[in-house]
């Protein structure tokens, strides 16, 4: 356990934006990405496994009979930590991804149920500790708002202000920890109608990019201002892939802050099977992030070895969070290597190979070029 690297990933987005779907897609796409490597990814622990199964069933249900019913996916009701394990096949090694899912409505103070302040604060701490922040974005709302009155409702529906506030808080924290890498990923979802790389006929990807940049310009500015070292990427993801908008409606709802409720009708593209696309960018970005982090930490460790040794305990006191995490992980790895190097039995040599292989896979992935949808901002 000690040598497992825990990667905390924060997600911030309103309800129904597709947080849960994005998380499950990341697992799915990562599996594809890691096939034919010595690594695998799987849910860590039974709750995660159950949750993922449930999601899959719900999705299948919503795609029943070549029709897509967005209501088929239930909203998240309680915060839930998805834990995914990138596993080199050695119990004490590997990378654990922790993604915190929560009911999206909670980011809006007014919509958060009574008495959940504490839970929400825990969510916020998790986000603060995450060196990676995912911002899922509802593309359909952006793209189908074809009239100015609907466009005025968009920030309310996307809760851009709340999302921006949280992102700013996150970025401030990143500034504190400016020696550790930071990664912000804008993930437009429900965007399959605007790309032609997954069965669509109409390429409106440029408009989508422009609209996202515009709608989230405040967020981007805050993050850049607060944490200039933060890497930002734009990575549109199809979590379903085989649907596309048939028509959209803006229903007047006086009680909603934006005044309109958005809904879309979908048709199912042949052959009607889920086809996740673009979520691999998240793992690739993580790997790039990780390799960079490792390099930073390696330099640090070397420096410390030259001066006087700093104990793990001292470091833990001084510098919490991800950086320590990596430091510990790398130390553990190094210790492990040293340990196996003197034990010349076969198991030890296999273990060493696994460690080196994992390094290699991560290195390879980090060098991978993003898909054409992705922009580095």
């Amino acid at each position, binding site marked *: 356990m000690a040598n497992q690297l825990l990667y905390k990933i924060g997600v911030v987005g309103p309800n129904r934006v597709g947080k849960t779907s994005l998380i499950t897609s990341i697992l799915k796409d990562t599996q594809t990405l890691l096939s034919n490597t010595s690594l695998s990814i799987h849910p860590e622990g039974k709750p995660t496994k159950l949750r993922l199964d449930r999601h899959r069933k719900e999705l299948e249900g919503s795609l029943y009979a070549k029709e897509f019913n967005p209501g088929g996916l239930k909203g998240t009701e309680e915060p839930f930590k998805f834990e995914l394990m990138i596993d080199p096949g050695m119990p004490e090694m590997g990378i654990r991804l922790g993604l915190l899912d929560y009911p999206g409505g909670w980011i809006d103070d007014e919509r958060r149920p009574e008495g959940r302040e504490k839970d929400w604060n825990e969510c916020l701490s998790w986000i603060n500790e995450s060196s990676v922040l995912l911002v899922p974005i509802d593309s359909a709302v952006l793209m189908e708002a*074809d*009239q*100015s009155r609907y466009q005025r409702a968009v920030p309310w529906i996307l809760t851009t202000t709340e999302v921006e506030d949280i992102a700013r808080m996150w970025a401030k924290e990143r500034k504190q920890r400016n020696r550790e890498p930071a990664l912000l990923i804008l993930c437009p979802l429900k965007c399959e109608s605007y790309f*032609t790389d997954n069965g669509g*006929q109409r390429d409106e990807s440029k408009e989508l990019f422009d609209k996202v940049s515009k709608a989230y310009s405040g967020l981007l500015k805050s993050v850049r201002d607060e944490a200039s070292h933060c890497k930002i990427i734009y990575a549109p993801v199809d979590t379903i892939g085989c649907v*596309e*908008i*048939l*028509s959209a409606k803006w229903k007047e709802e006086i009680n909603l802050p934006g005044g309109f409720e958005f809904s879309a009708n979908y*048709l199912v593209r042949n052959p009607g099977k889920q086809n996740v696309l673009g979520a691999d960018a998240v793992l690739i970005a993580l790997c790039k992030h990780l390799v960079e982090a490792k390099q930073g930490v390696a330099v640090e460790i070397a420096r410390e070895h030259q001066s006087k040794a700093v104990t793990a305990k001292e470091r833990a006191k001084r510098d919490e969070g991800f950086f320590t995490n990596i430091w510990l992980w790398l130390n553990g790895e190094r210790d492990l290597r040293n340990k196996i190097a003197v034990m010349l039995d076969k198991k030890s040599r296999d273990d060493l190979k696994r460690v080196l292989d994992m390094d290699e896979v991560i290195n390879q992935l980090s060098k991978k070029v993003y898909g054409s949808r992705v922009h580095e901002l």
Partner: protein
Amino acid sequence: MHNFAVNIKEILKKRHEHLPKVLQEIERWSTLDSEISLLEGVVQELRDHPRTPNQLKDGLRDFQTNELRKKIADALALLRVVEARFSRTTINIGVSGVARVGKSTLLQSISGLSDEQIPVGKGDPVTAVRSRIFHSKSNCRATLLLHSFESFRDLVLRPYAFSLGLNVVPDSLGAFRTWTYPQSEDDLPKEFQTHSNSTMLVRLLAMQKALPSYQGDLSGGERIVGFEELRPFVAYPLHEDEPRRYLAVRDVKIECPFPKVQVESLGIIDLPGLGEIAADADNYHLNGLQNEVDLVVLVKRPLEGMAFWKTEDGKTASLLDKARGFVKNRRDFVFVLINSGGADLELCASLRKSIRMLANDGEEGKNFLVLEADAADQVSVEENVINPLLAHLSMRLPVMDQDVLEGTKADYISLTSMILTSLKDIESVLTCVSTISPSTAEDLEHRGEELRKDLAASLGDLVVKLRSQARSSEETPEYLSAIDLAYEEILSWISNGFGVGLDAWQSKALRSMQAEHNSSPFAATELNRIRVEISNRYCSIDNFFNSRVNNLWSEIAAIFRKGIGELASADDGKKVLKQLRTLMNDASEKCPTLCAAIDDLLALRLEYRTHLHPYVRRELDRLNLQVMDTESGEYKDQIVVAVSEAGAEELYRRITALAEQAAYYTRRALIREAVIPALVLHAAAEQFDDSLIRSGDSLREFKRLARSYHDDIWPGVFNGIIDTNARFAKVIRAIRTIREQLGTLDVGEK
């Protein structure tokens, strides 16, 4: 022979082709004549009006059109001669010469007629009346053109009276009968007592005396007479007391089959002897000639005492020049014929020589071509007269016709410049003299400028408003609802089974699929039909567009109405603009630039098909059955269903979905382009503003508008002060009309 006949026909045909042009000119000059008389009227009105400034009155004092109108009348007369020439159906050869040279003999030879119809005689002159003789296969008749008393008085009596110094002529037959003429030379006014006048007086008295013999014939009109009764009508009597029915005859036309020269469309005209003593006889006959003949043969007979080129011959030739008119070469028009029949050879030779030396300046054929024949011999006449003349005509007649045309044209070109000079004279008077007092003129100018400034300001505001609309991201609610309406209708059309009903549609689909063994043909046809339907239904937003365009017109019309008051008072914008356009066009001083600006504005169209369809068309591509596979780049059918009832149901669902999607995305595209109508309107208003206000002639034309319509725009303000202007404008208009008419004259062309 035959060749000549054909040639003559062709020459005549070519000649007729000139006719429409000549008629057109006649029409134009007649119109010009009345326009000039109109100008005179309005100039007079202006000149005589008490409120017209004296300076202007003085300037116009000298203006008169009598001279011009006389010249136009002359030009018209000329054109009528040309018209007569070109509309004639025969080619006419005149036979002329002093008395007794054998003209009638020549005609007898040609026509085969006898003394009874074409009298010849010894001694005294015989032929009293001009006769025109035509070859005719079928007819054998003589048609007399008879005098009325009036024409007899004017053409016969008056010249005699005039020559004798008697100024009054009888005004009726009865008066003539009892008219008291001087009985002898001594009774004539002193300066008219000459020998020839005494002969003339004798003749006049004889005419009066013989009146009972011909008064019955002074009926006017035509009369056909038999050949056997013809002679008294065409020949002088042998004795003093015989009847003088020829006096009642103006002209006789004889038709008969010619024995030798059987050319249809050929006429020979026997002219009574020239240089005769009858008063004004030469002019009388020649006047007729100009209309009537294409060529004249001057007959000379080498008799003792006549066998040389006499002074009279020279005079006769000069008289014939009159008949020649615009034909350039005398050689073309006059031939000398030496009638050698029964003449002494020596005399012939001396006549020949005399003609060469005197008439042709010593050079054979220089001024006249000379023929020689025996007038009494049919064969000689055919070979030596008719054939050479026809050969000449077939060569030269087209040239002579051209001469005539050009001569006429040259005549009215000079007339045109005369008229233009006159017009310029008036114009310069008009421009030198301002009809309005300087202060009034200034006020009017100022008002014109202010009017333009006011319009400029309001139009500027409108343009700014439209610009902000075009820049606003806010869609026009009416536009949105127009689109929504179309969209909802399309959706309900779709949900009603694409206009045919769900069950009907599905069973039709099934039947088609069963017949074709697959679903594609039916699907393709239906998708096409749906695409067209959707597109057509979105056309209904043109109603909205129309109302926008009308709105713009109304707004601009309202701006005008603020400035020009009751001048254009129609109840809708478009009508007001049209009224304005007409007013500007009809203004006494035209405003072409303003007019064009309004024309452009009125031509503005805003249409779904033109302005929006191109942007939304690709959304309808969703309704192509074949779509490109984005990975493989290949086209494939996007819908394939089983040939079964379930398949038909599925087809319905799938096509419905595609149709709804296409309708939805077309709608979205239309809304995205919502700014286009505003852009178009803004551009149109800006363009209008530019061409109305900022074009180079704008200020000038606003001033013109002010001058032309001051009473309507500022009613009461200029009352009476400048009503002279109306009269002034009338003169300007009359001048312009004349100028336009002159401009259409075909003067440049050869």
